[in-house]
């Protein structure tokens, strides 16, 4: 039951992501905009379904933040990643792409490399906790994809991030 509903969701995700996620690492990134659960019930694939990517994103926590110019994982970041490890272990038919990002205070090429460092920090941690590295890939967006657009530290702090994007299917 769960597997088949997951497959249905994946197909839907494919159709949507092909249009909207042209820049994503994978075209099979899963659509996270699923309907939320009805009162009292768990709708498979929704954020209330612990096996769903939406649950991973909203409840486990899909991102960790970094200090200026740093790629070291804070204790909070490690706690988030421990949750990710647990989820990835439980849901072993999902893979993940880790996206590294930088804030706008830096030049383009350096920020690409810095985002790569951050994504790699996350990937190395997940691998060190037992996630097979063939389930993980990383990509840096440098300063190209801020989620917050103001030009002060309140936004910069949220933009210096590595986001674990759950994707379907075996990596290779």
């Amino acid at each position, binding site marked *: 039951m769960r597997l088949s509903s997951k497959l249905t969701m994946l197909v839907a995700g494919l159709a949507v992501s092909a249009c909207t996620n042209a820049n994503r690492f994978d075209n099979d990134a899963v659509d996270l905009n699923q309907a939320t659960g009805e009162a009292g019930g768990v709708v498979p694939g929704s954020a209330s379904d612990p096996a769903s990517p939406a649950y991973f994103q909203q409840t486990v926590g899909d991102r960790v933040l970094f200090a200026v110019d740093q790629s070291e994982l804070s204790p909070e970041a490690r706690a988030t990643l421990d949750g990710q490890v647990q989820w990835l272990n439980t849901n072993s038919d999902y893979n993940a792409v880790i996206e590294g990002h930088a804030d706008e205070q830096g030049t383009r090429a350096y920020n690409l490399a810095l985002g790569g460092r951050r994504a790699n*920090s996350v990937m*190395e941690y997940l691998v060190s906790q037992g996630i097979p590295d063939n389930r993980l890939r990383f990509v840096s967006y440098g300063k190209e994809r801020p989620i917050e657009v103001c*030009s002060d530290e309140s936004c910069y702090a949220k933009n210096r991030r590595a986001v674990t994007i759950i994707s379907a299917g075996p990596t290779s």
Partner: protein
Amino acid sequence: MKQFVATCLTTLLLAVMAPVTALAQNGPLRIEITEGVVEPLPYAVPDFVAESADAQELAQQIARVVADDLTGTGLFREVPREAHISQITSFGSPVQFADWKAINAQALVTGAVSSEGGRVVVKFRVWDVFSGTELGEGMQFAGSPDGWRRMAHKVADQVYSRITGESGYFDSRVVFVSESGPKDQRAKRLAVMDYDGANVQYLTSGNALVLAPRFSNDGQRVLYTSYETGLPRVHVLEVGTVQSRILPGQDGVMSFAPRFAPNGQTVVYSITQGSNTDIWAMDIASGGTRQLTSAPSIETAPSYSPDGSQIVFESDRSGTQQLYVMSASGGEAQRISSGQGRYSTPVWSPRGDMIAFTKQNAGRFHIGVMRTDGSEERLLTASFLDEGPTWAPNGRVIMFARETQGAQGASSLYSVDISGRNLKRVRTPEGASDPSWGPLQ
């Protein structure tokens, strides 16, 4: 060759140091850029003479573009046409120098345009008004009507060159990233334009994120970074056919910050493996690669010296981004930046004597230049975010991107003299970043 380079260094140094020398009216008509120019040279460009009935509009337009080019340098000041006493009605008639002297036009550019069978011919002469002599010889350019701006730029390049003794930069193009959409959903596509922002042509569709295009020395090819495959990879595009291909590389490995060697056959770029970013070189024909740096830090933004023997790049091996120079074959690198702050995006000047860079210090960004040994550092600009200098083909002007602050922040292109004067915006249809200035055509 060594002697030549040394001479260039000396003259450019003068440009840097010397304040102002007003143009002597009694000497020959000449602007010594190397002495720094604060008082621009007054000149006049009356409408060119239309030598065929349908050339009237072109004759005016071409004269205007010539004037825009010359005045835009900050080295020349146009005497407005309303002040002209004489009219030029025939290209061959003697010039009434007294009439141009009277309005203090020290240089005069006269020209004529004819159009016949889909072919436009532009003739021009440059006059030294105060000595009443012609500067250089009359020339003519011919081309199709839609190439009229290029012909105007060629005229202006000749005028600039005859008066300054330097080669011009007006008949040149700039490849850049055209930006649209809000800051958190910005669409980027490659575009190429004339140096003055005219004739914009888009080279990619905007479906994939693209960054930092770089012209080859002959202007025929462009290297750039594209997310077309899902992660940043170096691509090369033929400008003539607008066909592009990805350069060979390992699956799933990011490559970016490419730049051509002067010979056009080798590409230097960065590859990220694990947490480490290093500089590699690739023979573009064979795909053969060679690793040039091996420190565990970030090494990126490589740029060749014009003779191809050295590479300047940025590295944070010391803890913050700084500039280093190494042999084009890799190995030991010498740090050249030594001031406060971080230095990045170094670009070797086409003359070989200077390096332009981005500097971050105390929360501000600057575009600056230094000699290739790091001495004589001078900052030319300051703003919330200035980034990514590129040199005009004559090494006298730098173009860069400036991004404004805040949620509505947008990027646009600016140019500035290496003296720090004449900062001005280059108009583009949308936002713009990552300029790369191509050769004089």
